[in-house]
């Protein structure tokens, strides 16, 4: 009996995209809204990639990275707002950073 074996091909590309976008969201979380935009996109893609009753492993990673990216992005936004609010009127902060 000739037996031909085709290796399983995991074609859940949306989970893969979710993972990649989630990782990018963490990287760009310190940039302007990068973490929030890409993080929420990663979470949405991870949720939509579930076609079984369980989450794909890459979708889980994408979900986690997306949530982390969103949280970091929101935190970075708050920090930037606080720094802007606490900046002296002449444009210099105590540490010497320019804010405008």
């Amino acid at each position, binding site marked *: 009996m000739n037996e*031909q*074996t*085709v290796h399983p091909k995991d074609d859940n590309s949306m989970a893969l995209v979710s993972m990649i976008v989630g990782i990018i969201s963490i990287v760009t979380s310190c940039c302007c*809204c990068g973490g929030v935009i890409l993080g*929420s996109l990663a979470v*949405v893609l991870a949720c939509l990639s579930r076609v079984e009753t369980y989450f794909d492993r890459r979708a889980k990673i994408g979900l986690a990275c997306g949530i982390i990216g969103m949280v970091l992005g929101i935190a970075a936004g708050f920090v930037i707002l606080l720094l802007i609010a606490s900046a002296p009127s002449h444009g210099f902060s105590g540490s010497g950073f320019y804010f405008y």
Partner: protein
Amino acid sequence: MDIKRSDLKLYARRALKGCWGTIIGATLVYMAISYLFLIALESVMLAMLGNGIRTLLGGAVTIQVQTAGVTASVGMLLVILAVLYFVYLVVILLMSVGYQRLYLDAASGQKAKISTLFWAFSHKPWKFILISVLVALLAWITLLPVYVLAIASALTGRGSFAMVFLFVYYVIMIIVYAYVLLTFSQFYLILVEDPEKGIFEALSESHALMKGKRGSYFVLCLSFLGIALLGLLSGGLAMLWISPYMGCTFAVFYLALKGAVPEKLRLSPAQTAAASGPAYPGGGYYREVTPPQQSGYSPASGYPAGGGYQQTQQGGYQAQPGGYQAQQGGQQTQQSGYQARQDAYQMQQGGYQAQQGGYSYQSQQDTYQPQQAPISQEPASQGTKLEEPENRNPENGNPEYETPSENP
């Protein structure tokens, strides 16, 4: 319908798997056409405003507008604007209907195509336009008391009564709107599925389908709030995926109301692969390939085995019960599905007549049925020549027939 909300969403995701690209492409086409119309509308409006004001400032009595070398009056531009706006509304409306059809196709397991976006242009377009006009008219009529009261309160200067009335009226109208929208929520999908149905027939069918399911539909709508919020957070980018997901879930809900959810959506991809047995090549699952059935002779039966469609038969005919062995070497028989039959060799050897009824074998079956006619043994004279039948195929048979060496 006894399908849970989470299952409906799962079915929608399964239905969309594999056609995300098509649906997102359709969304991009929809957006491109919408923006083209909007750009055209804004260009005409800007031309009217800019050139019209300039002409008025110049002291002209008749306002002339010159755009792209064409001089036109403002009245003509207004007509152009109205026509363009009407065409824009019609195109957007019909493409929205095509969207519903696209979602229904995806949920039904049919192939989703971008061209389905323009499906409504060729399937009773005036019916959908008429429905939209009637719906807009009804909405305007329900808001008529608000307009009347607002004008009256502005004229009389008594605003307190108007405020109370408007509050109560809005609360009542929200309840009525919600009831009507939930009751006739399947109206468009019914018409999209079968455009031949009448408007009132579709309304009554939607009413019958949604009986006792309004709450489920309402909760289903509310359950998209979270993911819609995420879509907003992503700057609207994720709405490219969320909006088809929502549309397809509503289509699956409609199919579930009718009890027509495709079976393949109920099964996970792994279950589908397992249920369908040996999967297709490249489908991503293990496959046990059965080689082509061996035609011809079975080794177990003592005959040489051949594979595939080309049968090499060597060794030929087995010894007859009478003790003769007729060697037929190098016979090559090509089987292509038909039944090759070698008709009877009639051998008259040593006073015996050995009749062999030939072999019947098919290429696709592993069946080998030696059809041996009953051998009639009767005394014959020595040295009788071998006679071949006239209808014997010379390509199948071995012309060099070996005469049996001994006579039992």
